[in-house]
Each structure stands twice: as structure tokens, then as C-alpha cells.
């Protein structure tokens, strides 16, 4: 192979003073790189030496975060699918005059949209992500907490749900973290669901209700006998939640995306 010629940038080795400037730049980048290296590796003594708090504040700085995690599909790859179904209440839940829609499978609709698409929009993962987060936290809840989240939250403020879950927490700080994560996802799902339901069934949604399902991929040894799509979902009931509507622009965005309910459908069941 022919000898490579120097580029138009080629210079002789610079003086010591100039080399010191480059060394200084090198040290800055070396420290940065070392901190990134320590951050992305599994828990290690170097991380303890630097200090978890110091490392976190550097990686997640507020100007330009270097946040990253490469434990994707590892050590245990994802092996479960999520599903979210919704129905809407037009009127106070429990009132005899209140119209309640049929259940609609949001994730199933997203599945249809992403089939044969090599570049699907990430938005089609929204309920999968929210449902997955809810499933993983509810899986850590005790029976009493599961009963609480299945209950209605219509007249009381959302803080009531937080209080009840905290009172029933039996797992200390880990339990508090799980329920904090649950509450965030519950609120996001309620906001999402309100706008989704309004776009599907029309204005006037007073409350929404969800079923969040999970199913596992059949074991590798049974891959040619059992089909993942035939595995039934196991659902957690997320109870009735008071609607949280968005502004006109936000609703317009959902109106352009959500499939409208067929006019022939009898929603008032």
C-alpha cells in the first residue's frame, strides 16, 4: 500500500510551552473520560473512591449532561410485553346517567401501526413504556396497595392516593421509591388517557380508567410450540382517575393521531 502523505495541517513537533498547552487539554479530557468510564461500568471500587454523589453531579450536570447507560438488554434481556386498555366516563362515575365507553386497546393499536416499519416513531412505545413502568412498580406493591390503586380517585385530590399508598408502605425507602415512580406514571397515563379518550370518543371526558397488562415471552425451549402473541395478558386494574385535560394545541395533536371510534359502536355500556 502506498505511503500516506501528511495532510495540509502537518506541523513539526511544537515547542515545550505549546506542548504543555496540549497536555493541559489532554488532562481535562482524560479526567472527563475517566469519569465517564467509571460511570458506565457496573458498580466498582473506583466509583466509591470518586463518590457516587460527585460522579452523579458531574455526569448529570445541568449544562450538558453526559448521562448514559449501556446495560441495555443486560444482564437480563427484556422478556415481557405490556398492554394498556382504556375506557372513558362521560359524567360522574357511578351515576346512572353517566355514559361509559367500551374498553379500547391502545397498545394493540400501536402494534398495528409499527408492523413492517423499520423506522417506527417512538411515540408508538408510549403506553408500552408507561405500562411497563406501572407493572414493574405494582409488582413491588403489597395486596393493600394494589387494592388502593384499583380504587377510584375522582373527588379526592391526587395527593390522597399518595397518602394512602404511603400509609400502606411496608418496604421502607425502596417501597417509597417504587410508589413515587408509580404516582408519576399514574399521572402521566391519566393525562395521556384523557387526551386520547377525548380524541377517540369526543369532548366531555370526566374520568378515565385503565387496565395495564403484562405477558412473558415463552421459554426458548418452547419457541417453536408456543407463540408469544397467544400468551394472555395478566392485567392490573388502575382505577378510575379524574380527567386531566391538555390545552387546545395538545388536544389537537392527539386529535390528529388517535383513531376515532366508529359511529356504529354502542359506547354506552
Amino acid at each position, binding site marked *: 500500500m502506498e505511503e500516506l502523505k501528511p495532510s495540509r*495541517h502537518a506541523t513539526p513537533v511544537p515547542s515545550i510551552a505549546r506542548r504543555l498547552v496540549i497536555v493541559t487539554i489532554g488532562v481535562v479530557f482524560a479526567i472527563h473520560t475517566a469519569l465517564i468510564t467509571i460511570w458506565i461500568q457496573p458498580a466498582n471500587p473506583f466509583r466509591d473512591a470518586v463518590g457516587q454523589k460527585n460522579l452523579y453531579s458531574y455526569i448529570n450536570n445541568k449544562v450538558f449532561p453526559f448521562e448514559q447507560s449501556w446495560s441495555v438488554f443486560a444482564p437480563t434481556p427484556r422478556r415481557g410485553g405490556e398492554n394498556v386498555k382504556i375506557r372513558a366516563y362521560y359524567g360522574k362515575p357511578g351515576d346512572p346517567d353517566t355514559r361509559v365507553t367500551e374498553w379500547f386497546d391502545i397498545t394493540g393499536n400501536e402494534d398495528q401501526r409499527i408492523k413492517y*416499519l423499520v423506522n417506527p416513531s*417512538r411515540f408508538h412505545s408510549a403506553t408500552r413504556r408507561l405500562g411497563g413502568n406501572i407493572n414493574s412498580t405494582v409488582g413491588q406493591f403489597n395486596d393493600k396497595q394494589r387494592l388502593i390503586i384499583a380504587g377510584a380517585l375522582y373527588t379526592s385530590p391526587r395527593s390522597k392516593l399518595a397518602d394512602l399508598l404511603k400509609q400502606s408502605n411496608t418496604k421502607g425507602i425502596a417501597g417509597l421509591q417504587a410508589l413515587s415512580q408509580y404516582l408519576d406514571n399514574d399521572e402521566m397515563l391519566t393525562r395521556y388517557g384523557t387526551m386520547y379518550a377525548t380524541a377517540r370518543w369526543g369532548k366531555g371526558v370526566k374520568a378515565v380508567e385503565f387496565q395495564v397488562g403484562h405477558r412473558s415471552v415463552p421459554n426458548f425451549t418452547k419457541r417453536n410450540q408456543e407463540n408469544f402473541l397467544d400468551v394472555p395478558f395478566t392485567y392490573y386494574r388502575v382505577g378510575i382517575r379524574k380527567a386531566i385535560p391538555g390545552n387546545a394545541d*395538545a388536544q*389537537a395533536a392527539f386529535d390528529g393521531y388517535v383513531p376515532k371510534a366508529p359511529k356504529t359502536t354502542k359506547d354506552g355500556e
Partner: protein
Amino acid sequence: MSQPSVASRGLDLVNEWYDRFESWLLTDKRSLYGASLARILAGCSVMGILITNFRVRNLMFGQGSVWNDIAQKGNDMYWPPRLITSHLGNTAFLFYYLLVILLAFLFVLGWHTRLVGVLMLIGHISIIERIPILGDQGDNILRVGTLLLLFLHSSEYWSLDSKRRARTKAEPMGPGPGGVLAVVKNLYNSQRVLPSWFTNGLHNVVLIALGWQLIMIYFSAGWFKAQGPLWFHGTAIYYPMQLQEYKPFPFLTDAMTHVGVMVGLSTYVAMVVQIGFGFALLHPIARRIAIFCAIMFHLSIAVFMALPWFSLSMIAFDSIFVSTSTFILFDRWIRAKLRPVADLFFDVTDPIVAKLPGRSKQPSLVSRAAD
């Protein structure tokens, strides 16, 4: 005559390695072709993500993303979304969105690369980080890699900056207002402003930082996998590939997972390539094999798991590991192949370009390369 001692020979070797490293680091810019290709592919990734999500832009990043408001509020790391995009209505956001796509396109073309690159990066973050709940690692590597790329000289090849640089001459930069004007002109014409000894050192230091970042990504990803029993037993990739979000072509996935050996081979190759990537770079042949495997690995992820933009970002930054001689061969090959098409194109466009004010007729790149 006495033989030199082992210690003396060892010191000579250290000295030789030090001189070679010093020369590599300080006397020229390295991997200019790789940096140029990384620029093009990273810009394509930004464009790809934005164009893919164009129809759902308001739901994902605009006012419709209010449903993940609580995640945005909990994520106070990013100022661009808060300052720029959070207050835009649907119409204003549409124009902003198109502007960032245009910036990414200009970045691909290498038009005022550094300035456009900075604006593109801020624009991209301001859009993408509106939806932290749907973020993924592709966003992270694209953000971090593009930041480092901005310190590299990535417009040396395949860029409009390089064409402008070839067309113009550097203005002498003296003291006083004339000097300032010359600096501005040189910046505009993509001519040298800072001394080469400084930019060479900076370019190469950042090149090492980007390279190390990629090696660590591969290593830690492989390292985490090595801890998992399913990876250990060679069945791990079967599980996520059954999920509908990672199964765009069911018949392809089913054909692959039907054969257990294919699953085992893919699982082990993925893990081994990731752990061994950094070590393989130390040997020229192993390096070529590792880069080939990494590209195939990412192409497979793109097609089988519907993650094209993450894959493209990784391939973009991996290109810094490809040697200059390989790029030169590739450059010649592609120019020869494209020559008939390019000649036809330039036959049409050259007379038009020649009539533009302040332009003299330039021979086409293809014609020049062939001369």
C-alpha cells in the same frame, strides 16, 4: 562490543513509543476521513429521528407532550427544552422543527460545519429532551458523540466548507480592525484561524476521547451481558426479539429464531464483539474484523429490531476507527463508480454555477479525482 542491557533496550523502546505517540498527537490531524464520515452520518441520524417523528412531532415534542410534564419537570438537566421549545405553539413549533431538520441537512453537507453543528445540537436536544419518558440510549450517544465531533475537524472531506476553502485564500491576520475583519473572513471561508499546532493537538485529544467513549460503550455493554445467565447460555437475544416493538418483520425474526444455532451464534457474537472490540483495535487485521462485525451488528439491530437511528449513530462514530488508507481506496472506488452520473450532473450544473456572481468555473470533483 558488549550487548545493551535489557533495561537499556526497554528504555529505548519506551522512548521510541513516546516519540511515535508525540508525533501522532502533535504533528497532524488524524482520522480526518473518519471524522468527516462521522459528521455526515451523525447529521443523517438527527435528520432521520426528526423526519421519522414528523407526523407525531406535536405529540412527542410539542404541546401534546404535556402528558409527560411530570417527567420533564423532574428532569431539570437540560436548559434547551425549557428555554426554547416548551412555550412554542403547534405552528411555531412546526417552523422550529423544520429549521432543525434544515440545520441537520446543512451539517451533513458540511456548510459552516462548526456553527451549524452547535446550533443543530442545541436544536436537537431542545426537541428530543421534551420527552424524557421515551428517551433511549441512541439519544445519549448521539448527543455526547456530536458534542465531541464539534471539537474535531470534520469538514476536511465531503463538505461544502472544503470546496469553499479550495476556492478562497486565507487572509493575513494582523493586529487592529483589519485583523479582526480578516479573522471573520477566514472563519466564513473556513480558512485556518487558530494555529495548526493547537488545532492538531485539540483534534487528536478529542479523537482519543471519542474513541475511548465508544470502546467503553462496547465494553460495558458486553460486560453487563456477560453477567446474565441467558447471555451465558446463548439464548438472550431470542427474548427481546419476540416483543412487537422489536419485531418489525415477524417472518424474518421467526425464521432466525426457529434455528437455535442462529440464536446462539448471534448471542455469543454480540457479546464477544462488544467485550473484545477495544482489544481488537490494537491489531490491524483484528481491527478490520471488529469494525466489520460492529457494523454488521448495528445493521442487524436496525433491520431486525427497528432501531435504525441508534444503529446509524453508532456506525457514524465507529467510522473514526477506519484507517485513512481504507477511506482513500473507498473514495477512489466510489468516485470511479459515480463518475458517469456525476459528469452528467456537472455538465448540467457547471454552466449555471459559472454564471453565479463571484464564481469562476470549477472542475467537478469527480473529474479532478480522475485526472
